């Protein structure tokens, strides 16, 4: 075994032939306790895309829901009565709770975090329905619907999520520079709602609707920021709109800096910031002139920032980076609240729970970290990936199957994807997590030995970054489901009401329908869509998604944090 490359040759021969098994063995479904998730369809980039651009960028995906405009007539297939009952509850609640500040009305739905400005997306997006109407929606842009935006090589591509067409309906090319990140502002009432960061550091904001209405292959009506890298010439890595931020967005770069921009301001206003004194320390500098854009620079860490995520209410910003730290900032106070280090290696992705109580982070230690905002430390490590964790998200549409019986017990469902090409689903039950923390797992006498152990007994003070915890001190989670979804390493995942989207680095997205979705749609929208659903078998299933929605929202709304100020 030791030191010898060839000593095991005969033993290897058999296993290597297995390991080389061809990839088409991917299953088109996976099972969970609540039923089967089925591969519904795939989205890809145009087939003619140049090969040489591959590997230059990693595909990120964003969902964008374009809302109704007052003017255009409503096509019959997507009439408002097509909303599922559960969505109705959700939107009504949102209006109610967000009533005091209109711009936040839908802000709570973006719980899927990471860099993806994920929207609830699905007020219209019942996929089973649209399969019968997609021919019209792609041919004739009607200014509404849910769109999948993704980058690949030197292009940004837009697909109609409700269409089964594999090829995107729209391609925008940047020619020799690479768009690497993008975000959609679900709350934008006017003006630009899509922001795109490039490999050169340049940033553009545009109107998504305007791009879709145009037939060309160039970005149109764009505002250009950090032109030719005048403020920062390092690669953009992540962009995010500030929830409820009135058109403010942040752009993170590979040199550890983050810039705050306001879309209402001209991009040309020059900004200069003082040199950073200490690369290892967090510091914020504001632009000196009111016309300047960006308006502020946050120096977050040494080395690259890899991902950003705002809490759904916009109060907190989480950032992860090359140095392995998760950092959580109070966004308006520009203060570091808490944070901690990975077990080892860089962190690559992060996401908030809808209620703002937990943050997921994943990275080069192959672990999915669950961070508690209340305890300001890691409360669980998910073990199950065989390579780096590249995407994490809470499933905010899920609730425990028997939510009514369990009373106060809170459960979360979350997902993660990795460079091992796997999608993992996890259940986080709070009782399971909290108890082992007070009593170290396995009953081993960790209290007396480790210096680390002491910090598990108390909540660390505000503003302090935690060192990497010891392996034995953190409770472990095992995945509920592990499914190999692509042949390429993955880069992200998005939960929608009807499905889970998995995205691979090379620009392919797969849409996995939740169990019972088609059936529940049928019961909700029978009056309008009975004709289009004729071919679907009748279902005896309970209305899964409806139950999930009310259950989940009921729990989260009482959390108090989301609309707390």
């Amino acid at each position, binding site marked *: 075994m030791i030191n010898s490359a060839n000593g095991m040759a005969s033993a*290897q021969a058999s296993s290597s032939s297995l390991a080389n098994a061809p990839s088409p063995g991917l299953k088109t479904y996976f099972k969970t306790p609540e039923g089967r998730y089925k591969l519904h369809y795939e989205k890809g980039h145009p087939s003619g895309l140049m090969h040489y651009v591959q590997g230059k960028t990693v595909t990120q995906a964003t969902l964008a829901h374009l809302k109704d405009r007052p003017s255009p007539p409503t096509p019959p297939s997507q009439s408002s009565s097509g909303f599922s009952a559960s969505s109705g509850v959700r939107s009504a609640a949102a209006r109610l709770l967000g009533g005091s500040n209109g711009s936040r009305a839908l802000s709570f739905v973006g719980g899927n975090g990471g860099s993806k400005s994920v929207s609830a997306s699905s007020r219209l997006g019942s996929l089973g329905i649209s399969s019968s109407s997609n021919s019209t929606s792609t041919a004739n842009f009607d200014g509404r619907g849910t769109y999948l935006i993704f980058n690949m090589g030197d292009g940004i591509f837009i697909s109609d999520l409700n269409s089964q067409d594999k090829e995107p309906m729209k391609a925008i090319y940047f020619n020799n520079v690479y768009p690497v990140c993008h975000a959609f502002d679900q709350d934008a009432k006017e003006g630009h709602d899509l922001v795109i960061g490039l490999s050169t550091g340049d940033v553009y904001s545009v109107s998504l609707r305007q791009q879709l209405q145009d037939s060309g292959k160039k970005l149109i009506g764009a505002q250009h920021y950090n032109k030719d890298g005048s403020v920062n010439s390092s690669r953009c890595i992540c962009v995010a709109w500030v929830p409820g931020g009135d058109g403010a967005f942040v752009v993170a770069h590979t040199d550890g800096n983050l810039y705050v921009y306001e879309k209402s301001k001209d991009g040309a206003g020059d900004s200069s910031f003082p040199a950073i004194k200490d690369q290892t320390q967090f510091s914020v500098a504001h632009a000196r002139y009111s016309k300047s854009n960006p308006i502020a620079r946050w120096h977050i860490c040494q080395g690259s920032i890899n991902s950003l995520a705002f809490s759904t209410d916009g109060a907190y910003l989480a950032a992860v980076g090359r140095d392995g730290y998760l950092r959580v900032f109070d966004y308006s106070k520009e203060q570091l609240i808490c944070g901690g280090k990975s077990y080892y290696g860089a962190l690559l992705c992060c996401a908030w729970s809808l209620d703002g109580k937990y943050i997921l982070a994943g990275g080069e230690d192959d672990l999915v970290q669950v961070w508690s905002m209340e305890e300001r430390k890691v409360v669980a490590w998910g073990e199950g990936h065989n390579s780096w964790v590249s995407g994490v998200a809470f499933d905010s549409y899920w609730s425990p199957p028997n939510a009514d019986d369990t009373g106060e017990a809170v459960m979360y469902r979350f997902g993660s994807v990795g460079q*091992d090409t796997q999608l993992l689903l996890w259940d986080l039950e709070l009782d399971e997590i909290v108890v082992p923390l007070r009593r170290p797992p396995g009953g081993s006498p960790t209290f007396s030995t480790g210096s680390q152990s002491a910090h598990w007994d108390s909540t660390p003070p505000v503003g302090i970054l935690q060192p990497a915890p010891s392996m034995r001190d953190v409770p472990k989670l095992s995945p509920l489901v592990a499914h190999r979804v692509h042949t390429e390493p993955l880069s992200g995942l998005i939960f929608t009401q009807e499905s889970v989207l998995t995205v691979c680095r090379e620009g392919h997205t797969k849409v996995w329908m939740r169990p019972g979705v088609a059936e529940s749609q049928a019961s909700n929208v029978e009056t309008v869509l009975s004709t289009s659903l004729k071919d679907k078998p009748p279902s005896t299933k309970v209305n899964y998604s409806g139950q999930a929605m009310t259950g989940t929202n009921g729990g989260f709304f009482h959390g108090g944090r989301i609309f707390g100020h």
Partner: protein
Amino acid sequence: MGAAGSKLEKALGDQFPEGERYFGLENFGNTCYCNSVLQALYFCVPFRDQLLDYYASNKSVGDEDNLLACLADLFTQISSQKKKTGVIAPKRFVQRLKKQNELFRSYMHQDAHEFLNFLLNEIVDTLEKEAQATKNDQETSSPAEKTANGPKNAHANGGPKEQLDTWVHKNFQGILTNETRCLRCETVTARDETFFDLSLDIEQNSSITSCLKNFSSTETLNAEDKFFCDKCCSLQEAQKRMKIKKPPQILVIHLKRFKYIEQLGRYKKLSYRVVFPLELKLSNTVEDADSEYSLFAVVVHVGSGPNHGHYVSLVKSHNHWLFFDDENVEMIDESAVQTFFGSAQEYSSNTDHGYILFYERLGNGHMS
């Protein structure tokens, strides 16, 4: 050559590390396997320092004709260059290597990992012989034993056999323990083995962490492969597991990218994408978990097959990453390291794959 050197100096500017030398190594016809490993070893600072000390304190070394002397001579030559960058011909070293190991030359491909192994064992042999010569009075029954290569140096029940602890051992040697639990009497039998590097089986789209986990996964011995339990005095079903008992100072990980495919009757290169983090912790240890390692060198095999190809190396020196390709030395960005992970698809234009990884244990004052 001179231009390339000045280019590197320009790139580093006033950040050029004090006293450091970045020299390419001339290729004497298919000696890139050798050059790539020599660069990785040169930038293994504790090893280099000890080798330079050895050379300085053994003046007669210059005249000796063994690989250790030739390597010490080469490293001293590099480190004492007046220029900061340039090219050196490792002529004496390569001549000695070829003279010493005909077997090595006759291999189908010259394997950088086998070369590294051979070199470290030769150095240990020489150091042990020298130590024995000075001791002179002790009559050792067995000749200096190679610490590497196979189970012949494994010792039942107990630590490794008492041996001279040379500075090669201090840097590279770790101890594995092979724990076997008899499923009848539950007795655990532990057998220790020393190692200079870990050879890991690899899988497509996996990480080093995962490969290490597989290396230490539990194996059940049953059917025709039962275990002879000393306590039960019979063959019994048992569970076997390999753990790291003593993590080495310098952790060398060899990825088994060359596999013998029986159906083809030849070796095949596995271009699998195996990601390696810049920092690593070992989870498969007996104790002493959580000690952190930092990547400082990667030997890269370039090419689609095992019989031809090229070796280059990536080296981290004073927080800069450098790319060594025989004579050429370039600065690269840390993020460029990930282009050497391998390919997620079997047929790919990317043929540059990390082959030997060098990690240094942190927190002991030996940061390079």
